[in-house]
């Protein structure tokens, strides 16, 4: 069972690292994506565009390597919940938002919200399984 938890953490950590790198290569493009959600004032969006990619990197490394993992997994769950909520509200409001999840510039009208939301739910499920396995182990 331990190998399953480790594999899940490494895969999920890799996803966070990938998402973080894609965003930090071009924070301005990520800012543009955040603004399409039409929910944050500019100063908050700029702060998020600078902060979120590095938090994703830290969380990703934490999950994948096991360093500070207890904190990292709660941050991962919190971030994924926030991302999912943002996508659901954008879908409910019929916004043509750019997910920005992996630094892409694909708008909802082209890509749809279903896959990004499903992906987030899958990640939450993966995290929940990994946490459950660890708890059972103890």
């Amino acid at each position, binding site marked *: 069972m331990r190998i399953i938890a480790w594999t899940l953490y490494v895969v999920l950590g890799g996803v966070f690292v990938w998402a973080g790198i894609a965003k930090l290569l071009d924070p*301005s493009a990520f800012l543009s994506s955040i603004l*399409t959600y039409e929910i944050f004032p500019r100063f908050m969006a*700029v*702060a998020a565009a*600078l902060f979120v990619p*590095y938090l994703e990197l830290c969380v990703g490394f934490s999950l994948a390597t096991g360093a500070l993992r*207890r*904190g990292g997994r709660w*941050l991962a769950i919190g971030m994924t919940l926030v991302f999912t909520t943002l996508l659901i509200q954008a879908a409910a409001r019929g916004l043509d938002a750019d997910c920005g999840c992996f630094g892409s510039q694909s708008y909802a009208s082209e890509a749809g919200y279903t896959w990004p939301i499903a992906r987030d739910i899958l990640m939450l499920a993966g995290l929940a399984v990994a946490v459950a396995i660890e708890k059972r182990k103890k």
Partner: protein
Amino acid sequence: MKSFLEALALVLVAACCSVVAYFAHPKAPSFSMDAFSISLEAAQEAEGVLWVDARTDEDFERGRLEGAILLNEERWEELLTGFLDVWSPDSPTIVYCSSQSCLRSHEVAERLREELGIETIYSLEGGWESLIEAGLAEEAAQ
């Protein structure tokens, strides 16, 4: 408690990195909207405006402001010649992109300011959406 402290440590590391990125990253966004934004009302009062559409080629084909010319970063070199043919230093240039949230107009305006030293160049607040709402432009039927 340990989980909280670990999470806090990760947040602090990320915060430090983001502060460094704000000052050092070449593409770091600015907290203030650039001083060269212009409202639609002010734009309409300006005389002899050269309108520049900074959206994608596809968006431009679907609909544009009458008289606007296309200049986007995807085909910068190619389209810049067309811009220079019609640009006059005596007239203001106003760049628009798709909406209030897009950054393309700011980027194009910034690039023109840096590369050509054009001072009278502005980015339209609200972008294409505000032009549609004001009835100044129409999108072609799909």
